[in-house]
């Protein structure tokens, strides 16, 4: 459990379309200062007569304590299904029921390290705040962002300030290098002598990055995205098998034991099956 989590009615401050996404800003008062890179929020969607009974999770893109409205939390939302389309249809002064901040956050090394941040699609969102923090701690930060097409890369100008290099990839070659994120990683890791990878994006991407980080024997902290019903640890829907320090595989809740996890400990490819040797299997 994130002990700082609170439930609140957050006011929409702004909602702006950026490429395929919506950059949304919410007024959340003091909660803004409780949010750390990697944390997420859970929002009730659809209004009072909604047919959607579950919360939707969104990674916190950035949080700030200043602003005339007090503390702000910013999200990057892809209008995908019914819930996110409802959310992105909101206008300034509308309110949402939000629980925040939730989940684990990216671990920040005590010593300066050479870090590579890898984001797929809106998975770039939590990486910019992380980059700032790492930079402030004296780390060198390289970044790779990928998506299917140019409009699905979220990389605002101001976000790029903290990174030493930014590489873009798209499946269709509409911007940056044509291909998958993972195609470009080995070269960047080697050239920059990367010590740790931070990642966020689709599960398949995280899994592929883990193979690479394992090969280079570097740390890999990834923010996973399992389908969640509650976001606060009570429903057990968001689990995935993770190997503990005792080498025992357990089904852990990605909403409270994650979303940030040690990539090398996650048993990837576990959709539709429980890995052998899992506790209680």
């Amino acid at each position, binding site marked *: 459990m994130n*002990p700082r989590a609170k439930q609140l009615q957050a006011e929409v401050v702004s909602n702006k379309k950026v490429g395929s996404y919506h950059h949304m800003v919410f007024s959340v008062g003091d909660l803004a200062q409780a949010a750390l890179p990697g944390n997420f929020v859970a929002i009730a969607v659809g209004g009072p007569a909604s047919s959607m009974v579950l919360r939707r999770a969104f990674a916190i893109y950035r949080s700030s304590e200043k602003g005339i409205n007090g503390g702000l939390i910013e999200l990057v939302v892809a209008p995908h299904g019914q819930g996110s389309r409802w959310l992105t249809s909101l206008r300034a002064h509308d309110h949402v029921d939000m629980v925040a901040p939730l989940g684990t956050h990216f671990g920040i090394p005590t010593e300066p390290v050479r870090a590579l941040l890898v984001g797929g699609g809106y998975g770039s969102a939590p990486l910019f705040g992380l980059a700032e923090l790492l930079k402030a701690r004296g780390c060198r930060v390289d970044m790779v962002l990928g998506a299917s097409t140019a409009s699905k890369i979220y990389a605002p100008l101001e976000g790029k300030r903290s990174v030493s290099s930014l590489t873009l990839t798209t499946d269709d070659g509409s911007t940056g290098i044509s291909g998958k994120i993972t195609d470009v990683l080995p070269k960047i890791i080697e050239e920059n002598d990367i010590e740790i990878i931070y990642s966020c994006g689709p599960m398949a991407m995280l899994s592929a990055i883990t193979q690479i980080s394992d090969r280079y024997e570097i740390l890999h902290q990834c923010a996973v995205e399992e389908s969640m019903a509650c976001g606060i640890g009570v429903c057990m829907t968001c689990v995935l098998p993770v190997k503990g320090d005792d080498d025992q595989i357990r089904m852990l809740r990605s909403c409270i034991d994650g979303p940030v996890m040690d990539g090398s400990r996650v048993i990837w490819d576990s959709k539709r099956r*429980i890995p052998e040797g899992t506790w209680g299997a």
Partner: protein
Amino acid sequence: MSFSFATNLAGSQLPNPVLTASGCAGSGKELSQFFPLTELGAIVTKSIMIKPRSGRATPRMAETPSGMLNSIGLQGPGVDLFLENDIPWLASQGARTIVSIAGETVEDYAVLARRMRNLPGVVGIEVNISCPNVENRGMVFSCQPESARAAVEAVRRNIGGDLPIIAKLSPDVTDIVAIAREVSHAGADGVALINTLLGMVIDTDVMLPKLAQKTGGLSGPAIRPVAIRAIYQVHAALPQLPILGMGGITHGRDAFEFILAGASAISVGTATFGNPTAVMKVKDELEEILIQKGFTGVSEAVGFAHREMK
């Protein structure tokens, strides 16, 4: 006129009739961040089995119109760790606990019942018999009168003391009254109505059942009319049998509907996923409605919708 929010659930005196639903409140710790557990009539634990369980593979969940499907598969620590960790912690919080137990065989229920003796803070046992019976082709215990009876009898014979036993029934039966009657004869002090309905969602992208387990349990407001009907039927046929009602309760008004149908207490499940403080909201709203309607206590309202219409 003074109002009392207390209720008697199958012999257990609770300060209010608003409980969590089994499997929908984690271990209690998670919710205690949002409100003190003492505020609850009682906390109902997830269903505890003898051994630790990993639960089912993912995906385990699908949202459905005004509801959701789950196939968690009773993930949990097993009774040993549960008694070692969860029960003392809940007791330390001053929570009233109803332990839900689930077995795969009749013997499982007997073993679990014996472990339930003299636990601090425990005010009742919910016997989840909506589980597959491994000794009988995986048929759900509560779907057959004989196996429903056998499971409850096993608990009754082994529990000792006077801890109330509440048998939780599946709505997926032709005649829910017959099953309720059966478990009542077998020694249940009350029934919990309803567990989830068996459902399925097919993912139209990959064109396969969305849940790894194929089928799952349907819960949430979508099933509320089925729950109300089941409770109304059972209360009409067995007016002396206490009922713990659940199925889609989201607002105080919903809880009131369950009480009018015949429930002495209610559980809030799925609504907590959409709102961590749903149970408190239901509690406050229910109290307000009961007072506003002029009831002096919960028991006056129980089954009130059964009175003759003029």
